[in-house]
């Protein structure tokens, strides 16, 4: 009997040890309440005006005022990072309808030559039809990246199949207009779900 109990205990220990890491905790190892990368000091929302997928001007600060805003610079031909980041955001928004109602996800292309408003719209609609897509001239999108404090994207390769080296993080602006955190590629859904309601609470 003792043998059976010890074996049962061992199995419980293994299951506990191996499944326990699957969910995000309420505090992080860095001591922050957020699971994302903390920005110290918090960064203000950048000012830029670009064109949305309807062809209308989109004043980033004015249109997102008072909302949780998730800003991401990418391009629709991106083979790996952009689709994963957007799929993660779409999955999390599905899980958190209250957050989705009070937030806006803004995707700014870093490849305006290929990413026309129609191309951006059809790309974003694969993830979430409410995601906002922005484009502009190459100078305008570069200025937007500088304003947001991310490295300006660079073209890699020649010909039609070129790729873009670009920042992979999503910057999260709280409703008070400040970014307390950003989320690099590799952020898990559990981390998003942990942080977004907290950021939304920073009104």
């Amino acid at each position, binding site marked *: 009997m003792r043998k059976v109990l010890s074996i049962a205990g061992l199995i419980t220990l293994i299951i506990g040890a*191996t499944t326990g*890491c699957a969910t995000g905790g309420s505090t992080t190892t860095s001591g922050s309440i957020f699971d994302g990368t903390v920005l110290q000091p918090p960064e203000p929302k950048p000012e830029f005006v670009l064109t949305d997928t309807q062809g209308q001007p989109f004043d980033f600060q004015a249109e997102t005022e008072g909302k949780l805003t998730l800003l991401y610079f990418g391009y629709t031909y991106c083979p790996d990072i952009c689709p994963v980041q957007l799929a993660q955001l779409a999955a999390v928004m599905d899980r958190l309808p209250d957050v989705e109602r009070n937030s806006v996800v803004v995707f700014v292309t870093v490849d305006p030559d290929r990413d026309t408003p129609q191309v951006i719209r059809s790309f974003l609609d694969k993830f979430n039809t409410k995601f906002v897509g922005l484009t502009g001239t190459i100078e305008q999108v570069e200025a937007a990246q500088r304003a947001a404090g991310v490295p300006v994207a660079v073209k890699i390769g020649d010909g039609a199949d070129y790729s873009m080296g670009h920042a992979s993080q999503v910057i999260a602006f709280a409703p008070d207009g400040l970014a307390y955190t950003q989320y690099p590629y590799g952020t898990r859904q559990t981390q998003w779900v942990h942080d977004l309601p907290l950021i939304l609470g920073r009104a």
Partner: protein
Amino acid sequence: MKLWCAALNKPWSWHWIAYPGVWLTVLLPTIIYLVAVRRHGDTDRKAIWTFLAAMVIFWASSDWPVGTLGAGYLASVHMLEYVFYTLAVAPLMLLGTPEWMARRVLARLHLARVHEWLSQRLFMSGLIFNIVLVATHSPIGVDTLRSSQLGSFAMDMSWLASGIILWMPILTPIREQRTHPFAAKMVYLFVSAGIVPIVPASFLTFASYPLYSTYELAPRVGSLTAVQDQQLAGITMKLGMAPVIWITLAVMFFRWAAQERAR
């Protein structure tokens, strides 16, 4: 050069990838088997075809595209691989191994006593099978092992070994080790491979979020989301194992009945 399928961290493509390590792992035992059978002579053709079928399934489950998809893109394919390894390759290998060959292999590898010990202890065989199942389907196990070729190879080999351990008390080629009564073997198989795996399968099916970062952060293949893929993996574990288990139980039941009638 890639030897074994591991997570690639790049978008999935239908461009063929060569895995010489997989070919070697499949070809080496096949060649050794065929040479040994030829030298020995007088081996049942059915056993030879059964062993070759095991090797074909082993190759198809380990090589591109199934191996590649399972190692780094889809949890559901990872699970399909597991089902093939443990419920097809392992029992077919045991069924296709003639008794004289099994004795020779066990003696050469100094595994005769281990084999005897495991064949006689249903509880321990079932326990080892399920410990490997839980460890290799835990988030930390999958994410750690699938990130490297060596880890991925270790995971696949542990599946094969655990499958052989599971089936050994039932299908061992060594005649004198087949000592368990039919009822005990049926209960053993039903509990070890039919009931206990439902627990980890349920974790996968009913989890709200993806458990494995390997598959969550992989570029998507098709229209399945990471959670849907994980649910499919859970269902594959739960339902994919059922036909093999139930067919085996039915065969064992009829053999038992026939044995009783003959008395």
